[in-house]
């Protein structure tokens, strides 16, 4: 089995196990304030890292290209409180313009 299939199946199995576990464990086990706080922070760290890696790296190199312009457009859209589809679209359009025409 290749990486993609292992990824698809592994992610799906664990995602479901986590959901089901939540419905089955006693509430006080997970309600410690420190656990709650860290659980809010982990997605921020992971998603920010993913933004960074996906916009300015290619394999193991740091590369500044059309994607960074797309990210800039996304930031501007977010500053203007645009909705999620508009944010994604402005990034795609900006990046595509630079990739195709510059």
């Amino acid at each position, binding site marked *: 089995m290749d990486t993609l299939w292992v990824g698809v199946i592994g992610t799906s199995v664990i995602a479901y196990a986590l959901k089901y576990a939540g419905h089955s*464990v006693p509430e006080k086990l997970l309600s410690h304030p420190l656990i709650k706080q860290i659980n809010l922070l982990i997605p921020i760290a992971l998603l920010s890292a993913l933004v960074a890696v996906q916009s300015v790296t290619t394999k193991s190199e740091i590369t500044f290209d059309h994607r960074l312009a797309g990210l800039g457009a996304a930031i501007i859209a977010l500053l203007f409180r645009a909705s999620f589809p508009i944010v994604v679209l402005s990034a795609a359009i900006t990046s595509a313009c630079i990739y195709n025409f510059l």
Partner: protein
Amino acid sequence: MSRVSSPTIRDSLSVSFTVGAYGVAFGAAAVANGFSVLQSCLLSLLTFSGASQFAIIGVIGAGGGAISGITTASLLGIRNGLYGVLMAPILKVHGFRRVVAAHVTIDESTGVSLSQEPRGLRAMREGFWFTGFGVFIFWNLFTLAGALGAQAMGDPSAWGLDAAVPAAFLGLVWPRLKSSMDKSLAIVAATFAIATTPFLPAGLPIIGTVFIAIIAGLRSAK
């Protein structure tokens, strides 16, 4: 339709359609990162958790291994477990219904359900089920549309799809950046990931930021 339930159903359906439409971005991004249409659709059907799905395609798309991808996706899926803890005493379901409830326990179903509290327990349950199933149906239909669309397009860069993925992550993280600590953490994590990319095996620059989050959490607890 009783008077109690109709506003709840309206809330559920509007959230379902709006959120489900983001499935287009996921389907397109998955194909742009090398996943097949079938694999993209299976992720939406079986994983059914947006951030985790974007994570697995993002990490593997950046050259990371399956373990790095699964670990990152699973760390983002922990919050669904916490939602389950909140929803279990509201839903009070067992057996097959609990198996189904667990699968549709996501940000939106939990959020809509909890927002129905002033309308009573019955509305909270309806909000959970209608939003859970609604998002499930639209998310999967739109994933298929996005994946087929991206497949037909060819070169992902020419259509800006390679920039759509980081923009989607940014759109997911932006609303979470409330306190100044959240913002500092985001910047430190992003800087760490970029700075370590030339040295660490693909995937680790992303997973490594979990330790930064844990340190930040421990410091803020003092």
